[in-house]
């Protein structure tokens, strides 16, 4: 239906640079999540795609059509807003029908499309109700149904689940994934919640300071972060980064010798909490346990190795005690090496 090309989009608000030269291509039918902390520019980028904000430079091309100068209403997009923006003075039917009415669709077509969209989102029993009589989750469904009813080539979603409580969010996430897979709409989804991005997206674009730090499949972003920022932002707990010194292209640890991507010098060794295996003291990295948090699925053990704070996901009920010292063995296949100066990953030779 529509491929999206974001070509060198930059945005300044006065002297502040909100977006620096963003290049991004979203394939037809693909689901891309823009993930980043607040103020990283992800919502600004989404609003520029929608035409609600104008870019300082660059082009937006959707389905081969340059939309940079095209007003929002003629871009043919659909959007789900953070606070839903479901019209309070229209009932559910009229809300879902709104986009179709604007397109001048006839009553029969409106009825069919509204029926299909509301059925997909399980809100058919509420067609006559006004939004004030709906729960947050139901309003959210109305907002999504309104967007899908126009069968848009591109769907933009701005933190659509962030106003829901945790359990409902989990439920809606799974449902949204199923619904969007069926609709096969090219989707750009803005979120600051990394589990949401991981769970929903085909690819994640991690944004920071107005740039895309990395764009890749969720597992790749998780396992092979391109920068220390990505490693720290994606995943909970964040990735551990341990400063190490390399000699003879290897990192020597007590009882372990790991190959390093450069001959000598200082590097940051990045490793996920679950890729550190607790072993007896004297083996691997020395680790002084400070806090043990039993989280059910595993125990989150926080402590220090030398000066560096590390978090380790130990098997549940492993009985680690604060104030004791153990050893940690990193899984050599799951290491990432970062340049300490630039914070960027070094490609293994």
């Amino acid at each position, binding site marked *: 239906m529509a491929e999206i090309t974001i070509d060198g989009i930059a945005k300044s608000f006065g002297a502040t640079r909100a977006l620096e030269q963003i290049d991004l291509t979203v394939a037809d039918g693909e689901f891309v999540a823009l993930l980043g902390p607040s103020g990283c520019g992800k919502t600004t980028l989404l609003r520029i795609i929608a035409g*609600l904000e104008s870019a300082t430079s660059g082009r937006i091309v959707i389905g081969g059509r340059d939309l940079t100068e095209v007003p929002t209403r003629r871009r043919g997009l659909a959007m789900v807003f953070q606070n839903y923006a479901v019209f309070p003075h229209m009932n559910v039917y009229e809300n879902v029908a709104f986009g179709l009415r604007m397109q001048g669709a006839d009553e029969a077509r409106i009825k069919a499309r509204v029926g299909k969209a509301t059925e997909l989102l399980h809100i058919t029993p509420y067609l006559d109700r006004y939004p004030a009589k709906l729960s947050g989750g139901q309003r959210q469904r109305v907002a999504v149904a309104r967007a899908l009813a126009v069968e848009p080539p591109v769907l933009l979603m701005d933190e659509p689940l962030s106003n829901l409580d945790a359990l409902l969010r989990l439920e809606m996430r799974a449902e949204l994934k199923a619904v969007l897979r069926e609709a096969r709409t090219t989707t750009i989804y803005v979120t600051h919640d990394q589990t949401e991005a991981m769970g929903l997206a085909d690819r994640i674009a991690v944004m920071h300071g107005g740039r895309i730090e990395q764009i890749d499949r969720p597992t790749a972003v998780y396992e092979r972060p391109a920068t220390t920022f990505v490693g720290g932002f994606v995943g909970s707990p964040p990735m551990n980064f341990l400063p190490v010194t390399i000699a003879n292209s290897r990192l020597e640890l007590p009882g372990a010798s790991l190959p390093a991507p450069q001959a000598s010098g200082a590097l940051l060794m990045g490793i996920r909490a679950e890729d550190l295996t607790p072993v007896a003291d004297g083996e691997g990295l020395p680790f002084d346990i400070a806090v043990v948090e039993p989280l059910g699925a595993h125990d989150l053990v926080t402590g220090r190795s030398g000066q560096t704070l590390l978090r380790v996901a130990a098997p549940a009920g492993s009985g680690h005690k604060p104030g004791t010292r153990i050893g940690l063995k990193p899984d050599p296949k799951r290491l990432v090496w970062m340049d300490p100066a630039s914070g960027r990953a070094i490609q293994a030779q």
Partner: protein
Amino acid sequence: MKRTQSRALPYLLLAPSLVFLTAIFLLPLVQTIALSFSESGVASLGNYRRMVSDLNFGLALRNTFLLVLVVVPIQLALALGMSVMIEKIGRGRDLVLWVWTIPLGVSDLAAGLVWLAILQDRGYLNSALYGLGLIEGPTAWLTYETPGTLFLGVVLAEIWRATAIVLVILVAGLQLIPKEYREAAEVFGARPWTIFRRITLPLLKPSIQTALILRTVLAFEVFAVVYAIGGTNFPVLVGEAYTWQNANQNTGVAAAYAMLIVVISLAATAIYLRVLRVPAEQQP
């Protein structure tokens, strides 16, 4: 002990304002009602009969309604346009709003005198028209022989003087509407006019209701501007009450006029409350 104290507290705090309102509003109202229905201490409808049979009564009633029906819709339309324009302004918004609301700070009599200075025989308007060669000398616009232009003058002055209060209420109301509603409508293909008609206007209804009630009630009480511009050439209801009270020294008929104005204002308010009602379920 503490419990009773805290339960009584709201009423204690409200008491001064209740006493105040009873003393200067409720008592005079009751007194006015009593006055209007009595003649030399005897209950009677005489005051109302005198009011209705007075020569100026029909004229005053007609003029007042005419003014309200012409002025209030124009003011609403103007204020809607102005408030939407103000919303679009980025820099200098406060300055524009400030300038537009200057007439609010001018007393209605002063406003009437300003327009008298413009519209009278040797006023600014005639000087300008004379300068342009459109009239040959001082021309009267505000006499009983020129009811059209007199009415127009009063309408102009009222619009200039009192549109700002509608504007202020609507600007405040517009700010309460989250911009996402308009953005959502825009994304789904609505044109600016459609957004205004189908989104902004319905969501602004509570503010429109407030502004209309306030403005209409005040418009029925129009007096000082009319008096300054037209004197007795353009009788209105409050003006008649004033004449009966002061010139004719007849408090009873003046009270009857006052009651008529109260009833008309209450009726107008009731109509607005009903027509512009937003059902609870449709409130945001």
